[in-house]
């Protein structure tokens, strides 16, 4: 028996080894095209799920953004803009100007915002609201809603009283009464 054959196929092979080679040789690797498993297509059907998830997440984010923006605009405070107008120096009387300049000369370092006179204040209001806290359009809507509410309550009250009267009153011929007590 020559062991070299087992290592590098040199030398004389053993007949038993040759037989084994012949038997096992049929199972050696043979190149052939890849066969996909049967369930591969089944799995591909669910490929839309990640896309759906991304779309849903985007939709949620968009919704959250809209809600946040609405909440932000509703709670935005009034903007108050002060416009400071300094009168032109030519219109001021020279004697007055002299008097005015005197204190300035005493403390020139603080002659900034403190000496500026505010002649006009522009308060920008988003909506002018009366005591009820409603704007003009909201108030009109509220009055309309109040009218409808009264009509609805009138009918509800009337029909409820009718039901009570009919349930408690004398039975008319052919009348079926059925009153349940609750509570």
């Amino acid at each position: 028996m020559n062991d070299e054959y087992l290592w590098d196929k040199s030398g004389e092979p053993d007949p038993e080894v040759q037989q084994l080679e012949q038997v096992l040789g049929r199972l050696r690797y043979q190149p052939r095209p890849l066969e996909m498993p049967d369930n591969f297509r089944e799995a591909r059907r669910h490929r839309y799920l990640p896309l759906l998830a991304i779309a849903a997440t985007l939709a949620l984010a968009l919704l959250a953004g809209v809600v946040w923006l609405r909440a932000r605009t509703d709670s935005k405070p009034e903007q108050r803009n002060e416009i400071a107008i300094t009168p032109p120096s030519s219109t001021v009387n020279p004697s007055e100007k002299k008097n005015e300049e005197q204190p300035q000369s005493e403390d020139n370092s603080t002659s900034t915002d403190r000496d500026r006179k505010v002649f006009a204040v522009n308060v920008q209001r988003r909506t002018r609201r009366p005591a009820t806290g409603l704007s003009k359009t909201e108030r009109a809507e509220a009055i309309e809603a109040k009218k409808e509410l009264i009509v609805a309550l009138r009918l509800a009250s009337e029909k409820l009283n009718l039901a009570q009267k009919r349930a408690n009153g004398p039975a008319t011929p052919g009348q079926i009464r059925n009153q349940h007590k609750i509570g």
Partner: protein
Amino acid sequence: MRSVFQRISIIPVLVVLLVIVSATAGHAQEPRIQMSHLDYLAAKATETVDVNIDERLVQIAIKVFSDKDPDEAQIKKLVAGLKGIYVKSFEFDADNQFSAADVDSIRNQLREPAWSRLVNVRSKRDSNVEVYVSLSGTSVNGLVVITSEARELTVVNIVGPVDLEKLAHLEGSLGIPDLGIEITKPKTKNEDQ
């Protein structure tokens, strides 16, 4: 690895579904009934009252009710917690303008255990009156009144906590005409004699 990705990507879908389901469930719990199928009767009716006041409008309307006027203050107190008032009322100049199916479609929405029928008066001569309430514990959180006559059909749906006694007492106040119907009071001994 792929299955992990799939699981992670399914989470937002589940969140969206959960939001939709919870929103639908919340809507279903409200004691509001659908009455839009009655709208076709407006074309036949000589007089139609169609009131749709949701919670937002109720809250806005409350702001213009005066606290100084006792009648208005009373109504304001009554409607303060309401989530909506919906009324459809039709008056016809001829008989049988609406069908029993119209009333049944309302009645079918008022099933137990969500709704309890408080009053059911049926008459061949006079009007049929049904009062349903939706109870939350011992308090009423929804009301439906259905009255049907040969030439009139009225459905009132109040959503939210409502005091039936106070509502019945409203007649006669704030321009609401008093029809002279007395609320039943317990009889005194003298009355019994």
